[in-house]
């Protein structure tokens, strides 16, 4: 589906561009937010990336992986923004903020036991920021290990470890639930 939209964009179809935007904007916006921590710059940065994409649409076929491309563009634009405005630049994944990402277990599952809900929520909140961010990129944004590694500039092994450690931590805390 994304491929079809990309083809439309390449052909100059603005409606296709709009659809692609609507599919992709929000997760990039959240990603930008992890760097810049404020709404307006995050929005502007992502919009600029999309507009640049539109301007360079004739060369779209040269992009191997559109996800990695967009995320990296956003990341670089964020880093530029932080430097221009003399704000602290995150050096490692650990320094990216994930406070705005609230992970929850599907409430449908936990509709009843308030105690269960509470334990799960607390367990998730105790995950370190980088865990939460990686969880989010993989589980919700649908990125693969390889893509996350390329975007965050870390090794695939690190991504794997992070996710595994996160799951282990959660499992440990969840084992308090006697079901």
């Amino acid at each position, binding site marked *: 589906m994304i491929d079809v939209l990309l083809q439309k964009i390449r052909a100059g179809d*603005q409606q296709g561009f*709009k659809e692609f*935007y*609507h599919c992709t*904007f*929000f997760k990039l*916006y959240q990603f930008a*937010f992890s760097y810049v921590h404020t709404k*307006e*710059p995050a*929005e*502007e*940065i*992502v919009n*600029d990336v999309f*507009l*640049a994409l*539109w301007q360079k649409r004739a060369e779209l076929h040269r992009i191997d992986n559109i996800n990695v491309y967009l995320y990296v*563009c956003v990341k670089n*634009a964020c880093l*530029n*923004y932080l430097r*221009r405005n003399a704000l602290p630049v995150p050096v490692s994944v650990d320094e990216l903020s994930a406070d705005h*990402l*609230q*992970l*929850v*277990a*599907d*409430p*449908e*599952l*936990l*509709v*009843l036991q*308030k105690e269960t*809900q509470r334990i*799960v*929520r607390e367990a998730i909140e105790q995950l370190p920021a980088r865990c*939460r961010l990686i*969880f989010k990129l*993989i*589980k*919700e944004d649908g990125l*693969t*290990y*390889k893509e*996350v590694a390329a975007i965050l500039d870390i090794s*695939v092994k690190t*991504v*794997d470890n992070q*996710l*595994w450690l*996160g*799951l*282990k931590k*959660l*499992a440990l805390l*969840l084992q308090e639930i006697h*079901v």
Partner: protein
Amino acid sequence: MNLDRILELLAKQMGGEASEAEQAELAELLKEHPNHGEIVFILQSIEAKKLKQPAHNEELVVRDAWDKVEKRLDEQSAGESTAVSSGLIRNLSGRKALRWAAVWIGLIGLSTMGYFELTKNRPIETLASVPVQEAVAAGKPRRVTLPDGSLVWINAGSKMRYSEDQTTNNVYLEGEAFFNVRHNAGRAFVVHAGGIAVKALGTEFNVQAYPGEGRVEATLLSGKVQVTMEAKPDQQIILAPDEKFTLNDKPQPAKDAAASSGMSYEVKPVKEMPALQEMGEVAWMQDRLAFEDEPFEEIAKKMERRYDVHLVFENEALKKETLSGVFKNEDIGKALRLLQMITPFQYKIKGDSILLWTQHVTAN
């Protein structure tokens, strides 16, 4: 430590790196160790909630952001020079930032005025067809776009009518709806419901006024609204974000009592329900029914609307049971069975009603 191995494989699976052999191994291990099933199930169900911000709805953020992109695309094709290179980030304290201040944040004053002037002559983008009069039968919530570009989500069992007069865009509501008001310079936007009028001042808010409930509520999420009551027109109540106005038709002890009419109102802050990370008041927009420490009879009223059924209590005691929970994507049968797991009761379907009763009666 087979849970470790299970988790290792689960991580790989989530990341799209699990080979076929590994996926098979994971399935096998889960079968062999059903005691770990529950935890794995919970882990698999973890999802990232949306940005915890005034915009409780991702769509609105995207819509407003797109408006800006579209504007710049228009400018580009009109030949104006708009510098867009991936390295260029405008200094946000400039004039341009003021023009593009997002409406839904509810910024009042100079910034929003600048934005509105620019949108005056733009055709208003509609995400749905543009009806003037709307009604929603019991069932699912529905979203419509009003002629002025505002968005309205109408809950089950509600109806709404829109009309414009010289100065104001009016909405007449019976039931419950959530509004994202698009400002029009020089025009007011007023929702009339259950004897109150809620005037929007650039904003997102929820209004609940089901006939026969004896209660009208208005909850503000972002921006500013002014509430007036038909019974006391000289009194104007301004709500701040995360505040809820409740008007009770039944006599109740309250801070400000309209003594003559037996009506009373109060304004209090609302907070998010921990399970949802958003206010229970707007959970219906995600097609969820959320309740926290509410008496069963109140929940039953909501369920009646949601499932289009009639619930009848045989015990007073059962009515008063307080329950908490969230329903999503389920039918009435499953909902009742879920509730049975937290408080013991029986139910039986009789015609188009469902009878509810509890076996043991506790002596009070």
